[in-house]
């Protein structure tokens, strides 16, 4: 389940955003996690949770730049972890 975050989040250019991860995030996250093993086995539940929270928070924001930047960073971090884990598991 998506954890509820405080109401005030510091955002780009010190803009104050009102957000709640509880907004429909629970249902979307449940669906994403159900589908994940078949559709995106590479993605960890933590990554799915994070992407879901970002999209829920930014769902009414027409400026996609900040959301994409956050997602890009999250995916790149996940790639680093995947490579690291792959190297570790190599004999």
């Amino acid at each position, binding site marked *: 389940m998506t954890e509820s975050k405080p109401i005030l989040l510091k955002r780009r250019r010190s803009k104050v955003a009102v957000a709640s991860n509880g907004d429909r995030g629970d249902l979307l996250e449940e669906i994403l996690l159900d589908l994940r093993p078949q*559709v995106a086995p590479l993605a960890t539940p933590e990554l799915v949770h994070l992407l879901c929270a970002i999209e829920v928070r930014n769902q009414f924001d027409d400026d996609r730049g900040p959301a994409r930047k956050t997602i890009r960073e999250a995916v790149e971090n996940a790639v680093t972890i995947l490579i690291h884990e792959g190297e570790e598991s190599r004999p």
Partner: protein
Amino acid sequence: VTMLLDAVEIENFGPYYGEQIVTLPSESGSLILVHGENMAGKTSFLNAIRWALYGYAKDRAGKPIPIRKLINADAYDEGQRRLGVRLRLRVRSSGQEVQLILRRQRQAKQGLTAATADADYEEFREIDFGGSVRPASEFDDYVNMLLPEGISRFFLFDGELLNEYEELVSEGGSHQAQMVQQSIEMILGVPAATRGRDDLEFLRKEVSKKYQREAKLNSSAREAAERLENESAALQRAQDDLAEMNRQLGDRERELRAYEIELKKFSEMREDATRLKDLRDQKDELDVERQKAVRRRAELAKDVWRDVLEPRLRHEIARLDRDLRIIRDAITEADRVESEIARLEKSLTQDTCPTCGRPVPEEHLARSRADLEELLRRREDLRDLADRSRHDELSGALGRLRDVAPAGVIAGIQEIERQMRSNTIAATRVLQQISQVEQRLHGSNPAEFTEYERKRKETNRLIAKIEAAIGTRQGEVRQREAVIANLERAINEQNLPALRRLQIHLDLVKSLEGLFTESVAELTTRLRRSVESAATDVFLGLTTDPLYEGLRINDHYGLAIVGPGGREVLIRSAGAEQVVALSLIGALNRSATRKGPVIMDTPFGRLDPTHRANILKFLPTLGDQVILLVHSGEIDPDRDLGPIATSVRKRIVIEHETSTRSVLREV
């Protein structure tokens, strides 16, 4: 996130001259009633809130009202060229509460006195969030985060939603219905999934380009990478073409539906024409029946005086009957006395007994004389009473009175008048129906029918052409995707260390894009089910028909009433439509990702008293703050407030002082 209104401050807006402030309670379940007669300024109050948030006010046809017309007429005449609205809001989320102040003002540019066009007015916006003044450029960001315009129709309810809702249930997929559907999906949070899909598609393309660039640097993969790059560019072009063709297809399909709606109107028009003839025949029959009834009543009315006199006649007849009986008894007695006198007088003239011939004893004679004297006195007493001519006179009068018997026509007249009242009601109903049908038929031009048929045919031909082109392009896309997959596989098989990270990156982003794509369909399906269940719950509380089992949702979020045996109820009254629309609004408010004040303008227009009472009981549960703008015909404070008195936290009256000024007063 919940947003509630603490106060609305209006300056020179519509009928509100000068500055007017209303404070609003915002505890959970607050019901606020704003009473105002037609033209007093109820819709302007709703418009002021809409204008403050989104910068526009709508007229009855849903078109934006120019600034010049929004400024209070008296203020404008005095030379004031300014209007403004400030909303004091309370934002609640995750147990925290922050005050937000939004203010919008339009003022004529310096030196402009006429200021007729919207462009003649400068806009000023102020925003204060939790005591911190924010730049005006963030105004729309805050509004979008709290109450995006796309979902405002479910908070600022102006009756127009009902018409839009009727579009939804028609399954026509009109442009308007699509807009409502988008709003519903927005309020339910579907954009979180669709935007996730779009963002990941964007990132996938970004990573793919990087991958191709990196592959080209490697000599063994260069050729395949260059082909991959070309194929990807060609695929993008094909996909862009496909998107454009789908857009065109959508436009043509909308056009087609519009023509079909027009053509349906023509078929309805033909039905209307037949119906109009039937209705006029019905009206003629009712008129004939009425005339017959009037004649029958006139005939019966000739004898009605008998029924009117009947109680007095009955009394008079009884009196005469009694008098007559007394006279008759007296005459009979007089006759008897007379014959007795004659017998005694005769016997006194004879001294001897006619039977035995012996002399009559003196004491017998004396007794007979005494009896005779008695009888003579009695005859004297009866002389006046036994009046034969009086007897004949009374007997004649009685006979004449008995001829004037009651006619029993009053009940008949009452029955005719009852029939005439029913006839009047039926005739009024038929006349109303005739007027409605005539209005529908007014201005219709059957010649346009041919033109619409031609347009429909032409559009169908275009659609078929676009669909064929889409089919070809889809084939090309599939082909190119297969080529790209093969090229990527060929590069991957080389297992180049420089591409390893990018390969994993691309695979991950692709799979995440697929994950969000699949989640969209699943999310909308589940949300539809949840809306259906919540709407059914609300509907069963509102409807007065015990046979209704619930509501069923369609792909467009239209709701059908489910009757006995799970069958859909096909014909719904205007009142039922309103109850279904309110059920949808209730369900959406319960399932919404954003919650705000629900402001409803004239919500009871089409409802009977029972439905109105049910909805009044339901309204406090609709949202944390429900503001109803009502006229006295909808809610009579003395009659209707009983069951909800405890929920009504405040009452405000809009007083129409002059034709150009109204005042908001708290009761």
